[in-house]
Structures are given as C-alpha cells and as structure tokens.
C-alpha cells in the first residue's frame, strides 16, 4: 500500500532532530508539525517573520496580525519571536535553519528541484522556495511518486524550470524514500520501500537512475 498523506508526513517527521530549527513548506510538509515527537524540541520558522510557531488558534484566539507563510491564522508560543522579512531570510540564507521540508513537481537524480513553474500555465511565483533550497542545510522533499497522469516525477533531469541546482538531500514519496548525494558522485539510492510496494513497481514508475540500498525496516 502506498503511503497516505499523513503517513508521508509521519515519515518526514523522522528527519527531525532535537533542537532543530525547521521550515515547513505548504501542503503535506505543513502536516509534519502534527508528528513532532513529544520528547523532542523542534522550533518551526515561518518565512513571513516568525520563529516558534504554535498550533492553529481556537476560534476565539484568531489574530489577523498572526499568520504563517501559507497565510493561515496561527498562534505564538512563550519562546516565539517576530522579525522582518530581511531578518527572516538572513536566517534562511545564512544557513541558520537546519532542515526544510518542501513539496515538488520534479526532482532529478542529482538533486535538482523544480517546484514553482509550469511554462504555459499561470505562474504564481516562487515565494521563498529558491531562498530555502539555497540556504537551508538539509532539504527534504515530500511528494507523490508520479504525476496525476502517471508520469514519473523522479527524473534523470528536470524538464520544468528549476528552483535550485543540486539542492535536494532526501525524497520521500508515497512509494519509498530516496537519498541523494547532492555534493558528491554517489548515485541516488532507494533506502526504504512503503509497505507492500515492490522494487519492480518503483522501477516501473521512476525515470531517474537509482541503486537499491534498502535498510532494514525500522
């Protein structure tokens, strides 16, 4: 069975470490916040100018001056701080954020990422994605393994305009987990399979070259 959206978020949450400052993208990455282990201290950064994001507010707590990067109403925590967009991106581009979890349209076997633009369609913009992949220490992608029409999204080379070149460290899809040696020469490796997914199925749905380096199930 391929992983569900929540299972994807749960798997991505295993990339968190105690003490990490983390930026979560919009969509499935946002769900990762629901799976932070209780015994772990993780501080969520929101690029519109907040460190230490709390849960969504109760109805009577809503504050229009307090939103996340997805423009959703949010709450603060005792440890929270607020700052300008310039300070926010100093954190991001200055390498002060340990981990970013983002969505993707395409990822190449050497770690190129495309997640902001489809030529010929209305382009909404890259927002902070290019800054995040350029500056955050480790970039984890969470996405469906194939596009809606079944086309592979893990490719030899991206066909869409890039968000960043050699920026992705790990790709978690609904079928498995891939490790990318973005700074070196080792080939992309398949390190985990979703329950009940076969190597043959993954091979059939992946264009990118990869070598199986499967770990024992955790």
């Amino acid at each position: 069975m391929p992983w569900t959206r929540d299972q994807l978020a749960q798997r991505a949450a295993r990339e968190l470490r105690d003490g990490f400052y983390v930026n979560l993208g919009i969509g499935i990455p946002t769900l990762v916040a629901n799976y932070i282990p209780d015994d772990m201290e993780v501080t969520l950064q929101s690029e519109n100018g907040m460190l230490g994001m709390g849960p969504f507010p109760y109805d009577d707590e809503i504050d229009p001056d307090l939103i996340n990067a997805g423009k959703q109403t949010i709450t603060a925590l005792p440890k929270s701080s607020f700052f300008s967009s310039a300070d926010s991106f100093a954190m991001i581009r200055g390498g002060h954020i340990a981990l970013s979890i983002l969505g993707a349209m395409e990822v190449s076997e050497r770690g190129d990422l495309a997640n902001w633009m489809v030529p010929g369609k209305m382009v909404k913009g890259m927002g902070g994605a290019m800054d995040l992949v350029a500056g955050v220490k480790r970039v984890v992608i969470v996405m469906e393994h194939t596009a809606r029409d079944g086309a592979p999204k893990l490719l030899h080379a991206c066909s869409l305009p890039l968000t960043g070149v050699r920026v992705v460290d790990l790709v978690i899809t609904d079928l498995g987990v891939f490790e990318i040696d973005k700074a070196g020469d080792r080939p992309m490796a398949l390190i985990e399979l979703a329950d009940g997914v076969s190597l043959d199925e993954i091979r059939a749905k992946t264009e990118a070259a990869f070598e199986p380096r499967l770990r024992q199930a955790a």
Partner: protein
Amino acid sequence: MADKLLPDAQSALAGLTFDGMVVMSGGFGLCGIPENLILALRESGVKGITVISNNAGVDGFGLGLLLETRQIAKMVSSYVGENKEFERQYLSGELQLEFNPQGTLAERIRAGGAGIAGFYTKTGVGTLVAEGKETRSFHGEDYVLETGLVADLSIVKAWKGDAEGNLVYRKTARNFNPMMATAGKICIAEVEEIVPVGALDPDQIHTPGIFVDRIVKGSFEKRIEQRTVRKREAA
C-alpha cells in the same frame, strides 16, 4: 521641524503621486498592508504604477483594488497566486510582472534603503532568476548579483507610531514594512494608534523616525485570507 503627522491618508498622499511612479507597498498576503494608503492611491487616480510588493492582494481588497481600476502597470513580487483579476490582466498582456525570490526581494529592498547598489546571493543560481545576471564564485561556490531597489514612494503599515515617525509593528504584520520604510524617497506610514512622543520605549522602536516622512492614523479591516482554527476538545 516640519510636522509629520497628517489627518488622513488623502492629505498624506497630496503632492506625491505622478503617473508611472514606483511604489513600494508593505505586507505579506493581506497581513500588515497599508489599507488606507492603498485606498487613497485609488482615489488619487494615479496611473501606470510599478508596485513592489511581496503579493498582489486579493480580488476587491488590498492591491487588488488598484488592479481593478487598472492603475498598476507592473508588479515586482514573489507570489501572486490569490488574485483572479491579476491573472486575467497578466495573461492578456495588460500587466507586466517581475518575479523575485522572496528573500532576494527583501534583501534588494533592504540594500536599496541602505545605499547598497548590489549584493551576491546563492538564491536562484542556475535558474531563470539568474539569466542575464552576473554570477561570480566565492570560496568555490557560485553566487548571482542582485541589485538594490528603491521607490518614489513607500507606503507601510505599523501598529503604533508617534509624531517623530518612530514605528512599532505587531507580530507577523511586520514582514516587509521595515525595509520598505527605508527604501522610498518618501515614506508614509499608517498606524493603528498615534502615541505621544516619548511614550514608545526607545529600545523597542523597530523603525526610527528618520525613515518616515509622513504618518497618519488609519482604520483597519484586517481581512483574513486563510482562517484556520482547531477545535476545542470536549471538557
């Protein structure tokens, strides 16, 4: 010393607008936008504006109001996905659009306001954003040259301010406002509350008054784009 305090957004804008001008407008989504000055710009009838703003408002609110009246010729933004009228004008060729990565946009404005002509960043290297721009290697890594941004006018929104132009922002409504305050030839701030000079703690002022030329008290709707709540568990 000239009095910076003006009675309303219309009088604050008086004598400052001209067709083809470049305006920076603060805010992230609809959070921390200068609602009153956007309305005053609409009423002024100024045309052909280039607007530098992270987003383009929504239909019928924020910068969407200036799109409705076709007063904007060009937007410089990082994300504009929430606006149908924007999409229509862009796809029909009526509206020009320049995308900047959000951090690059923030830093270009910060640099412009600080008199810095350009800076090198890793953001966008190897992408469309870097096309036609100088790239240079530092310590074995490639960086792209981005230039500072300035504007004829910047309009910003703060929480509290005084007649000296000192400003304090509130929560995530700060966002692009402090940098934009520094990068306009003229900066007008609108605030929720005007407090007496001396009432703000000098250690807690976010934008020192030197950057602010005019200040007005506004009234605010503070529309919410994505109202997201959780349910209380039954007691």
